[in-house]
């Protein structure tokens, strides 16, 4: 897979850049102009994410998590500050197809089967035809949807749809994965399983992952870096570097270290709410 990635999003593999942060935000500002006045969605956001980091964003509703992810993916343009991805502008990075994006809602195309949906990015990025079925099978298996490839989205439950959308983002091996509350509609058991899978995938491929969640344990369990945000205006109030080892069995959640980090996140969150 790594080989294929080099081939299809090769541009940004220069070794000299390896030490530079993959995502570098300096004083990023974003104000939406709406009909009842401007909304300050992001204010002076500074953040460096290194290659291979797993960074989680957590914060109350409306604090700008989604907006920041969208800025990274060049779906939104900051109104101030400087944001680079692999040293390039987000838009250039987008053009080099560096991103896999999992949206807050599943957003599958209803006229395509599950397999057809997963095939979509592969078709657009001109993956060699013979490779495609194999890739589709592989990611379907990864998210536990083997055998559902021929079904249409509306024939699956909400949770299954969300997993399909994750599979779609994984299929083409993007260098950077942007995931906006991917596990929101899933129950705890499935969630735990997918958390483990995601960690495994991350460890194996050295992808950089930006991950939005509402769950404190999830954030702590998955991340190397936890960003706590606060609303009105949307800003970063705390950045916590995780001290947990890279190898993380589910039981780690009962460890003292884990509980300590979770506590710090919770305090940060509470502070944001108290304002």
């Amino acid at each position, binding site marked *: 897979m790594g080989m294929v990635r080099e081939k299809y999003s090769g541009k940004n593999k220069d070794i000299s850049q390896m030490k530079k942060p993959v995502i570098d935000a300096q004083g990023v500002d974003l104000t939406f102009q709406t009909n009842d006045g401007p909304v300050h969605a992001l204010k002076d956001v500074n953040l460096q994410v290194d290659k291979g980091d797993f960074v989680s964003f957590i914060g109350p509703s409306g604090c700008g998590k989604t907006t920041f992810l*969208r800025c990274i*993916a*060049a*779906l939104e343009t900051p109104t101030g500050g400087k944001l680079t991805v692999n040293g390039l502008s987000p838009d250039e990075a*987008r*053009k*080099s*197809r560096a*991103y*896999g*994006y999992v*949206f807050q*809602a599943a*957003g599958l*195309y*209803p*006229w*395509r*089967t599950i397999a057809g949906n997963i095939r*979509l*990015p592969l*078709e*657009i*990025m001109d993956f060699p035809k013979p490779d495609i079925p194999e890739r589709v099978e592989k990611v379907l298996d990864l998210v536990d949807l083997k055998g559902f490839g021929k079904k*249409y989205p*509306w024939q699956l439950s909400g949770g299954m749809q969300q997993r399909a959308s994750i599979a779609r983002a994984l299929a083409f091996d993007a260098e950077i994965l942007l995931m906006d509350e991917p596990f929101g509609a899933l129950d705890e058991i499935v969630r735990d399983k997918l958390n483990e899978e995601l960690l495994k995938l991350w460890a194996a491929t050295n992808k950089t992952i930006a991950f939005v969640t509402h769950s404190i344990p999830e954030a702590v369990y998955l991340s190397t870096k936890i960003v706590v945000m606060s609303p009105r205006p949307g800003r970063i109030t705390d950045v916590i570097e995780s001290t947990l080892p890279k190898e993380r069995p589910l039981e780690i959640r009962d460890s003292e270290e884990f509980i300590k980090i979770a506590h710090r996140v919770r305090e940060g969150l509470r502070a944001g709410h108290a304002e």
Partner: protein
Amino acid sequence: MNKIIPVLTVLAVIVAVWYAAAIRMNSQWTYDQAARAGTEVTLSTLVKDTLAQERPKLPAPHQVVAELWNTTVEKKITSKRSLVYHGWITLSATLLGFGIGTLGGIALAVGIVHNKAMDLGVMPWAIASQTIPILAIAPMIIVVLNSMGISGLIPKAIIAAYLSFFPVVVGMVKGLRAPDQMQLDLMKTYNASGAETFWKLRLPSSMPYLFTSLKVGVAAALVGTIVAELPSGATRGLGARLLSGSYYGQTIQIWSALFAAAALAAALVIVVGILERAVLKKMGMAQ
């Protein structure tokens, strides 16, 4: 299938009302005739006469059915007295016009969705174009085309196209804009080109809208053809039948041509509906 009984019931009510109305509306004539002849009108002669007039104000249902039967089943379909023959003439112009209108409408919609200037500039004028009384400009179109040596099928088809392109534009613009922000953003993260976004996202999402407006469009195309057949020398086609029926005050002939036209329209709409179901099913959108 659960529609049959309700439809038949409503139909029965309509036919009953129709008969009653026929007796009422045609009675004036019966009384006048009796007065001229100096005879009395009894109830039974009234009913008998009003339902069998040659130029009734409102022909009775059975008169229309008899005329329809007479001009479809009883006549050779190649005969110019056959409604099937005239229906076919109208149908061919309708289909050609519908084809032109649909293609033109889709092309315009694609332009409107992809080009800001067209979006802002064309729509108000497309609406204005539909407020022009078509019956007024149809003869002019025919004359102008005639002077360019074009006559027969094409002028009719162009007028049919003029009426059918509008619903297609409106529906298609709506449809091509149906994808939500997230679906579009997804394409952006893939850095998909405009063409790829069109073929893989916008076009499929527009299908339900397209078919809805095609149903309206095909009926409009038929009206357009008939309008075009009125002034274009009243030669062949259902419109010409309507005209000559009116010209000679043959109400029964008018009504049977009217029903033939409506039946044709209904058939066309049903065909589009079947097509719709097939396409949507193939695309997995029929739930």
